[in-house]
């Protein structure tokens, strides 16, 4: 399926138990079952901080989520303790036993996870004692 890269400036809608706008610091704090959606990308966490700039219209710079962060995209779900979505570089970074689960059953576990929305490459590194681990699920050969 041809992937045309994720459109980072698609509209973002939020849902959370509590939303607190801190105007002076140009940021919004959402807490309690936070659920953020942007096109086919979805981010859930227990607490997020959204930083934005305010020259004229509101531009989101960065979303920092913590507490059981789950980022799901078609064919891929990434989880971790802390997740940072940088809208300018269009990169999501997950840290704290970060895991990627692919729809085809592959699993990647590492200390640090970087999902590059431009190239569509997710890379894992620096897990426990510097190793990344996981399993690939290989279809059973009819033959053997």
């Amino acid at each position: 399926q041809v992937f045309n890269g994720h459109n980072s400036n698609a509209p973002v809608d939020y849902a959370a138990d509590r939303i607190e706008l801190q105007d002076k610091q140009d940021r919004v704090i959402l807490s309690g079952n936070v659920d953020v959606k942007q096109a086919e990308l979805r981010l859930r966490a227990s607490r997020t901080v959204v930083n934005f700039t305010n020259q004229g219209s509101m531009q989101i710079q960065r979303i920092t989520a913590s507490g059981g962060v789950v980022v799901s995209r078609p064919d891929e779900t990434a989880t971790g303790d802390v997740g940072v979505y940088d809208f300018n570089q269009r990169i999501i970074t997950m840290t704290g036993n970060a895991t990627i689960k692919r729809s085809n059953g592959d699993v990647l576990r590492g200390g640090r996870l970087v999902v590059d929305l431009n190239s569509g490459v997710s890379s894992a590194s620096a897990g426990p004692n510097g190793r990344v681990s996981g399993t690939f699920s290989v279809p059973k050969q009819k033959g053997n």
Partner: protein
Amino acid sequence: QDVARPVDTGPIAGAPAAPPVSTGETEPVAFEADDVQYEQNSEVVTATGNVVLRRRDPQGQVQSVRADKVTWNRQSGKILADGNVRMVDQDGNQLYTGQVELTDELKTGMMENLLLVMREGGRLAALKGERIANGDVILHKAAYTGCDVTDDDGCPKKPSWRIVAKQVIYSDTQKRVRFKDARIELFSAVQLPLFGLTISTDGHAVSGFLMPDLKSSPSNGIEIAQSYYWKLAENRDLTGTVSAFTKAAPMASLQYRALTDKGAYQITGLATASSSIPIYSGTGEEITSGNRSFRGYIFANGKFQLDDNWSVTASIRRATDRTFLRRYDNNRDDRLRSMVEVERIDQDSYFSIAGYATQTLVASRQQGLIPVALPMIDYRRRIDDPLLGGKFEIQANSLNISRTDGQDTQRAFASAQWSLRQLTRMGQEITVTGLVRGDVYHSSDNALTTEDLYRGLAGWQERGIATAAVDVKWPLVGQAFGGTQVLTPRVQLVASPHFRNLAIPNEDSRAVDLDTGNLFALNRFPGYDRVEDGVRFTYGFDWQFERPRWKIKTTVGQSVRLSNQNTVLPDGTGLSNKTSDIVGRTEIRYRDFLNFIHRFRLDKDTMAVRRNEFDAVIGNTQSYLELGYTRLNRNIVNSVEDLQDREELRAAGRIAFARYWSMFGSAVVNMTSRKDNLQYGSNGFQPLRTRFGAAYEDDCVQISLTWRRDYVALGDVKRGDSFQLGFALKNIGGGI
């Protein structure tokens, strides 16, 4: 292709735990790496930094692959491992290569400059390897060796032999490596062609040609024997051998071995056609030439444990003529025993029904006089005596002896023995024994037995036997010379009424010889046909001493007959006269270095030595010297065909030197003087068998040359020297 390339064969560092066995449609492949990149759209995974993949094959065995970098196209299932690649297959064989393509089942595809180190020992290197359609991998310019490539302290060592071949087929499904027109390179100097070679990669036996044997003997000239080993199944195999001789027609031999769930058996057959010169003519005159005929030998044996109690054991050995084995199988047995036995054994009873037949190969013996014992039935049961706490042992035995040209004898007896063992306060062990036995014999053609002491009276004979005995042992223990000693004086009184002996045919009490083993036995005759009667008093002591590194055991004894006795025995057996000879045995053992045994029997009157045997072993398993001397000087009147006098010296030794070399030799010298044995005595020093050889053996090859000299010509077996070249490759895991 450098077979001796040093590689790390230890466990793979940084390997993930083995994946669980696959359930359902997919199989998990566990991996670990320093970092991993997952290309979203093309589904290409790139892992770098000590990447380890591990997978379980359908049988649940774990395979692992290690590489510096792995690119895995998840859609096509193609994996490329690159940089110090190391694979461990399910049988523990390790494959090292620079770069390899793998399928997602971790099956190797193309690879260059690979080295396969087998778990069972043995290394296979090749310049190029490619997998073909049927899953086999074709290796080009390959070399194999079974030798260690590093010596004890780890420095690289040149392997003693290498097998090189232009093409090798490595099939991991059949777990086999087949060499095409291979050549063996010995000590990187000599190159010998080997036609086909097959090696197994899982240590199991595999069919193939075995290493040829090279021998020479005076009667057959030079012999080359080529064997083929055929593995029929996990528990059955067949080895066929063809031997070609320069001075005789070729011989074929076949050995079939099988393991069943109840037991195991093997059948070996040898067959050839050549002219044999019979050595037993029956008419006494020398025959110089024989006619050309089929000759052969069959040897089959097996044991089957049917259940906890019942078992069947059989061993059949037959040859077509008396000199075949000595000439073709360099085996010097002078009799071939065949037996079949069915046994039932449980805690308190023993039952056996057996048959024995022997083919004699001795020049002077007539086969028709050799007995066949069929059936020989023996039943024993032990019962506790409830009244006095003793032990009953009842026995029922029957025997049927038949000879084609000699006496036939049938025997049946039943006996009951009661014994009670008590300890006195002073620590004496008193054993009281009572035995009653009833015998029934029937014999015919007694006149055909030359020896009148054995003949007995023809027809039905009965005999009743009763024996009572008191045996007192007083084991005393104490410390001495820094060790523990146990001195056990022993006295025994045995009394039996007179009963008939010479009237009874003697089939199994002929090998009479008093020694420390039977001195205190109730009946010191072997077998059952002769029983000592009258009253006798036997005394002796047993001394055992043990301290660190030393063990000494000695036993001495004599017995005195209190009642006069008609001679049942020829003089000289040590049992015949009023007082028996003095018998003794001494064993001295110093660590595992020296083991010395001396057995003797002294004539009571003249103190002449009737039997004198020394056996000494000095040295360790690598270098040792064995010496044996036997002198039988019973001067039994030599009309008796058995128990003749003999004197012999035996020596054997091995010296190991220069780490891999060893020399060995053995000799048997007949020193029986003419006086003792007119026909077969020697002039005092007649070597009969001498053997000498040298061997080179390291961790992967064994080469030996043995020279043997036979001094006895027998029929078509000539006197003279024989040579044997032994050559064996180790860690070859299969036939060549």
